[in-house]
């Protein structure tokens, strides 16, 4: 039986991410009064990109080509660690949360290095912003993990997000609200969504993630696109694991419910992107610091007098 759950986990991880992006874009289109691209546009884009050729700059070395590959491998690794809908993740062990966080770090390292490899100042600028913002997002994520560990008594992501968490909502709901808000902010920042970054803009000077990958094309760009969608999916699963723990309902019903909530998260992100403007760059650190403080506050709420 466990193998069936692992198979469903793998299938969802591999297939669902572009659909979440489609939901976000559809929501934004509805807000703007447009028809918008079809829900499956993410998949069409990937197929289109995979059929194209690659143009490489003579400045680059193989680090430039390694960036997308490493970012995909590490994101897939993280996707194997996060639990979906309260089910045990394929890879779960004491301390796996650190592997989860550092795998994203490894992907980031190689993506920034790939950006610097082009020798372009735009891409260097994007890399610098990515590195800076994640410095502030990291402690927020760890405060949230500390709260989950202390509240559930588990040191693995699967244990932190299983049925025990639904009891914690009863006893220390306030702490979970604080860290859920903080994780949502981290999700938006790490995935370069509004208010941190505008995935649709064409003005390089304001962008973070998109500007790092200006020179990647064809299949490499497809890999980057897919890895980005997967990262959003994985962070979404972490966020949903906190706000909508499904560990207490039937394990088979939990799967469709999880898919439903993940798509609802797409709607939520789409709504946020529609009603907010992108922050000025200098205000971004302030919002991330607020996320840190919020999850630290959540941790303090756990202390029993």
């Amino acid at each position: 039986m466990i193998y069936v759950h692992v198979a469903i986990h793998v299938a969802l991880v591999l297939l669902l991410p572009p659909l979440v992006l489609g939901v976000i874009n559809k929501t934004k289109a509805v807000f703007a009064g447009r028809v918008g691209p079809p829900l499956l546009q993410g998949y069409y884009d990937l197929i289109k990109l995979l059929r194209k050729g690659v143009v490489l700059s003579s400045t680059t070395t193989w680090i430039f080509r390694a960036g997308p590959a490493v970012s995909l491998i590490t994101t897939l690794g993280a996707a194997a660690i996060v639990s979906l809908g309260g089910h045990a993740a394929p890879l779960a062990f004491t301390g796996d949360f650190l592997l989860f966080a550092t795998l994203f770090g490894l992907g980031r390292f190689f993506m920034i290095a790939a950006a610097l490899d082009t020798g372009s100042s735009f891409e260097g600028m994007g890399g610098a912003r990515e590195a800076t913002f994640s410095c502030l997002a990291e402690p927020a994520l760890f405060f949230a993990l500390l709260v989950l560990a202390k509240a559930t008594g588990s040191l693995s992501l699967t244990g932190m997000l299983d049925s025990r968490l639904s009891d914690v909502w009863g006893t220390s709901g306030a702490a979970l609200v604080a860290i859920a808000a903080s994780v949502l902010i981290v999700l938006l920042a790490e995935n370069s969504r509004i208010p941190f970054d505008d995935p649709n803009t064409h003005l390089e000077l304001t962008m973070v993630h998109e500007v790092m990958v200006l020179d990647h094309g064809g299949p490499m760009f497809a890999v980057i696109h897919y890895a980005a969608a997967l990262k959003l999916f994985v962070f979404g699963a972490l966020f949903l694991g906190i706000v909508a723990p499904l560990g207490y309902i039937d394990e088979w019903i939990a799967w469709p419910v999880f898919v439903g909530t993940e798509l609802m998260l797409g709607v939520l992100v789409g709504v946020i992107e529609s009603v907010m403007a992108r922050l000025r760059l200098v205000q971004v650190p302030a919002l991330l610091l607020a996320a840190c403080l919020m999850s630290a506050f959540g941790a303090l709420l756990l202390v029993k007098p």
Partner: protein
Amino acid sequence: MIDELSAWLVLAAIALCTLSGIPGLFAARSGRAWERFAAVLLVGGCIAAIASGVLGLLGYTSELDAEWSIPGGSFHFGVDAIAAVFVIPIALVSALGAIYGLEYWPQREHPDTGRGLRAFYGVLTGGLLLLVVAKNGMLFFLGWEMMALAAFLLITTEDQHASVREVGYVYILATRFGTLCLFAMFAMLAAASGGSLEFDAWRPALAGPLRDAIFLTALVGFGIKAGVMPLHVWLPGAHASAPSHVSAQMSGVLIKVGLYGLVRITSLCENPPLWWGIALIAVGVVSAVLGVAFAIGQHDLKRLLAYHSVENIGIICLGLGLALIGRAEDRPELVALGLAGALLHVWNHGLFKSLLFLSAGAVVHATGTREIDRLGGLWRRMPRTGMSFLIGAVAICGLPPLNGFISELFIFLGLFRAAMLLGGPTWLVAMLAAAALSLVGALALACFVKAFGAVFLGLPRSSDGATAHEVGKRMRMPMATLALGCIAIAVGPAVLAPILDDATKAWLGHGATPLELAAPTLTIAIANGALLIVLAIFLRRAARPKPAEVGTWDCGYAAPRARMQYTSSSFADMLVRLFAWALRPARHAPKFTEYFPQQAAFDSHVPDTVLDRGVRPLFRIVGRVADRVRMLQAGRIHLYLLYILATLLVLLLFR
């Protein structure tokens, strides 16, 4: 014989290393045979030391004890599990540095300094080995002073430069002050334990009323050597100015003996008070966060690496503090995780920091500059050096699948467990420390991707980088060995766990919780191994040469030039601004008032705040006061002899 083998081996190692460079001193300046002879002696000595360390870790610990005419002193030394953990990296890094030095600082290119450099390098290695195996206070001091003074002579190798002389003065002052603290600590230990200078006799002293004072003097005295913030003032300059293989040895192993001292002293205390652990964690957090923040602002590649040593020493202090908390609160799993994390990080940092310093040395050797913003695009010309630096950079950021991740995992697990199990102030401390450690990891990533990208990727920013060449075999071999070491530890934590357990047992003095119970060493090894294999397959595919026909597209910018690239200072700018409250960056920007401004210049740098705003003003005041008593210091030798005679007479009178 096997019972005493490890002690005899380490004795032979100390003698061989210390004497390795001495015969060369009597040779002609042009003599090239002696540099190889010195390297062979030193490598032989280090192999003996590694053998004794391995024997010690396998449980064949042994001691030797002989009379010594110095009061309170005895030739009492031995390789126990704690000493063995420090002996192995000292010997490995020193031996590899000696081989590297043959090409980096050859006698024929440096006829004036080459012989002295090798002689002092040997003395330093011997001193380091001696002090970690000593079991007697006086013997420990002998090794300590050999190490401290030889390091001064090595730092000032290029003393024709005023900046190097100044760095040397700062170092010698710092190390003298540290020794003074250690004198006070040893005096208190001896006074509280019936005048004995034997380590084993000090246990009662660390249960008595003086123990807090002993701990504080140890923290300052050993902390100066280890380079914890804010006692690190000597460290960045010294590491940057010394020849690179000496920097590797200093950063990789010399500063660790400060931690060895703390580990040894705390091992003698049966039940330390809780605040010792909290104090060490506080020191660790400050060192780690500010160390990496200062590193981000540096323009000098070796200074950047030096500040990362401060950061990593902070991480090790965190682990040791956690172990102390576990000991005070009687939580054996915290002791196991904290001490294993700290000691494994001693090894890991020894490996990857030496690797980084040797790679930086190769860059300096090939280009003649340490300025990051004058370099760029070196990957094409020096791919092997680049690969070494990349492995070191990924490892030092604590990223999987390399060794830094393993030790940080132990420390993180310990902090999380402390936060889960304990309440009150300890929960708060553990929580803040865990969050700070995550911040440190992200900042280190930003710093190293900046350094790696600016030095090795993109286009050369100046002619220095455009004419570089790959270094020779003798410099590449040590780098490759260290890189392999980083990978070996990453996939072998399950093998290392029993070794670390032995060290924990030696530190506690009784049985400890096995590390396997507290951390999933086998799972981590498999996960790391799998990730390594997958990455290797994909990176090999990516590394296949592909035709590149055009320049960087860059959104259609027509004529990109090398000087337009994002520099390392621009990359760091946002983070430097975020930490401006501590870094106090200096910016000299021109003000434009006219419509057609003349040529202008901009520059910015991050000086060491503690040195420039704390230590220097303090010493100016000290200097003014000291001027008054200067007449005692007349510079005439017969006057000094008179002082000594008078002191002796006074001491005899009051006896």
